[in-house]
């Protein structure tokens, strides 16, 4: 077997693909043995604290294990992706150490691990531009109750809680109407493509 190392970008990308598709422990172990010690060396020097450094390593590699499916090879190398995960965790660790609750969170600055989902788990799964252009047309085809919720959220910019308050209905109902409406909109949009 040719002995490619994880410092070979293509090999590292293949390993991530294997972790994503079949939860390959062998593939992850190989990545881990390459990246974890290097992260640790850097983090120890950075934090000057063995324990914080280990937290950074473990948290970063835990994300790599569970979120490998979010790696997009066309957007950069595996090493860069792992670097950006570590950068975000470091940012949040430093923030926590300052006991600041209102500050920025790394995910809100650099959404490295945001699910770019095709699923509808996320209530806000529709692409925004698409939404703005086509929503008005498609909305007309929604049942009235769903349309009202969608308009309040996406046109007036209300939160789901605000919509619940305004319509005097439970938050759960707003959520399910939003989900159903988005599902329906997606079907309509797909159908039209």
């Amino acid at each position, binding site marked *: 077997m040719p002995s490619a190392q994880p410092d070979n970008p293509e090999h590292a990308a293949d390993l991530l693909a294997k972790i994503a598709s079949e939860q390959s422990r062998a593939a*992850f172990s190989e990545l881990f043995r390459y990246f974890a010690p290097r992260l640790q*060396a850097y983090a120890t020097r950075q934090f000057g604290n063995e324990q914080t450094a280990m937290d950074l390593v473990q948290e970063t590699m835990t994300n790599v294990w569970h979120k490998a499916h979010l790696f997009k090879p066309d957007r950069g190398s595996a090493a860069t992706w*792992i670097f950006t995960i570590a950068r975000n965790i470091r940012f949040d660790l430093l923030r926590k150490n300052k006991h600041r609750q209102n500050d920025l969170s790394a995910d809100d600055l650099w959404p490295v691990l945001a699910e770019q989902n095709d699923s509808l788990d996320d209530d806000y799964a529709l692409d925004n531009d698409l939404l703005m252009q086509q929503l008005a047309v498609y909305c007309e085809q929604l049942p009235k109750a769903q349309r009202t919720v969608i308009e309040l959220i996406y046109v007036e910019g209300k939160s789901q809680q605000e919509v619940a308050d305004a319509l005097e209905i439970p938050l759960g109902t707003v959520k399910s109407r939003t989900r159903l409406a988005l599902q329906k909109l997606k079907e309509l949009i797909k159908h039209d493509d």
Partner: protein
Amino acid sequence: MIKFHPSEQHLVLYAAGELSPAMLMMVGTHVDMCAHCQSHVQDIEEQMASKLFGDNEQLARRASFDEQQMLQAIFNSQVPADSVPIAANDSLYLEGQRFALPPTLARNHHHIGEWSRLPGKLWRAPVRVGGEEMLNFIYMAEHASLPEHTHKGNEATLVVNGVFNDEHNEYRDGDFMLLDGNHKHSPATQNEDCLTIAALEGPLHFTTGLSRLLNPFSSLFFK
């Protein structure tokens, strides 16, 4: 076409997460709006990653740890709770007008405070992101002007939507400008209104952290 960009140093410190919260928001918003800086930030991240993971000298000097134990802990771990992002909200309203916010601001919509009216057709809303430096939306209606002023420190301004002028230039969507304390200027709008965000900036440091990976004297990013 965006004419004014953050400096190389700003982009490096942004990619490292080592600017003040206010400036992270400013540079992040510019990067959202500017394809050029976006690909530049990707290059910088790539560069930092290869420096970080390519440092075999440090690797040799580190204390070893029980890799097998950490591996097991990771295999046994729960999927990290999907940090359900606070839903991005890309609409900002003022006087019945809707402004579309770039992603960085949309994801941080919950930090935006109330608008207040200032003399001279100006409105201001704070963005509370922590840190020493203030971050504010400044909205200038048509035919508005700010009195000529200088700044104590550096002031960064980014046009989110619209156009304004000062003695030197015209600034449009995405333009990012940094004015130092000696720089006098008097911004004004003409027939169009203008939404900007502005932050006072402290000194830039390259003394610690990830940005240090790109030493100013060795990096191709500093010319």
